[in-house]
């Protein structure tokens, strides 16, 4: 069973194995994707059960995120010897009007990424992305964490979710998104400019959002590392709202 769903009168917990992380870390990993509990006792009981499930799958690294306002859950996690290693912000934008003005000549073009783009996109992800769950965990080897980001963009290309951002035939970055057309909503999965073109970050995001608007997407959401102040300033300028703060935790089993 690659997923776990616990549902009791006093709480719920869901978890899944994450083989894409195991691929780079070299040991089994799992993510707690949701946890709710009405009491500390209930939270601790759920955490014990998920650890049992994880151990049965030889998981060595169990991780997840909880709303930072949820004192009871955070206390339970600490009590169960989890450690908090990163903080993320859930942000969103409703409506695509009022984007910052960017000289039209500065806007890159977006085209669907193809297999031939993978080596360069992997290189950008490996070299120029410095934030994320694993990149910010001091216990994770940095090279492995970077490799995980590179694998991620390759997976996104293969899933048809990634676009290449080009300017004058030069690849300046990429953008990946998951659309939910029936809800007119999109998740921004992974977007970034290559370091030499960092000055073009704003035009890259603007063209990505304009592209969503052209497809009748009216709301987009994403998750940003709280340590990535540069990108937070960018999203603030782009008119995103900061919805919640998530405390990222993990435990080596």
């Amino acid at each position, binding site marked *: 069973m690659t997923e776990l769903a616990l549902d009791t009168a006093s709480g719920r917990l869901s978890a899944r194995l994450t083989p894409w992380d195991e691929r780079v870390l070299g040991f089994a990993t799992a993510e707690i994707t949701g946890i709710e509990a009405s009491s500390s006792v209930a939270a601790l009981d759920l955490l014990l059960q998920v650890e049992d499930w994880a151990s049965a799958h030889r998981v060595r690294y169990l991780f997840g995120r909880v709303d930072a306002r949820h004192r009871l859950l955070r206390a339970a996690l600490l009590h169960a010897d989890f450690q908090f290693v990163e903080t993320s912000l859930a942000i969103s934008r409703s409506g695509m009007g009022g984007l*910052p*003005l*960017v*000289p039209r*000549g*500065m806007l890159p073009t977006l085209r669907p990424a193809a297999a031939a783009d993978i080596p360069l996109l992997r290189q950008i992800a490996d070299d120029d992305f410095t934030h994320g769950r694993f990149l910010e965990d001091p216990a994770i080897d940095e090279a492995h964490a970077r490799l995980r980001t590179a694998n991620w963009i390759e997976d996104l290309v293969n899933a048809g979710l990634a676009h290449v951002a080009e*300017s*004058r035939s030069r690849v300046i970055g990429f953008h990946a998104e998951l659309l939910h057309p029936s809800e007119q909503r999109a998740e921004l999965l992974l977007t970034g*400019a290559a370091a*030499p*073109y*960092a*000055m*073009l*970050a*704003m*035009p890259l995001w603007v063209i990505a959002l304009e592209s969503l608007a052209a497809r009748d997407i009216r709301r987009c959401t994403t998750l940003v590392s709280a340590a990535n102040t*540069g990108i937070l*300033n*960018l999203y603030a*300028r782009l008119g995103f709202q900061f919805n919640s703060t998530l405390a990222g935790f993990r435990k080596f089993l």
Partner: protein
Amino acid sequence: MNTPSSEDQVIAVFARTLGIDAGEVSDELRYNAIPQWDSIAHMSVVAALEDAFGIMIDMDDVIDMSSVGKAREILRKHGAAA
């Protein structure tokens, strides 16, 4: 090299756009050397220079504009009296 002064239009554009005192702007001031001049502000600087000098700055020059001095060189290349 130009001497920064309140008369210097390049300095004035940078100071106004970045929201800093003109005395803090010199030809040696580099992109990302101060928090105010990040990738977001860079687009505003480019737009403000285009407006102030009546030119269009192309993509290569936008990427190449790594300092105030470099901006001045680019403006001169476009025939602007910078």
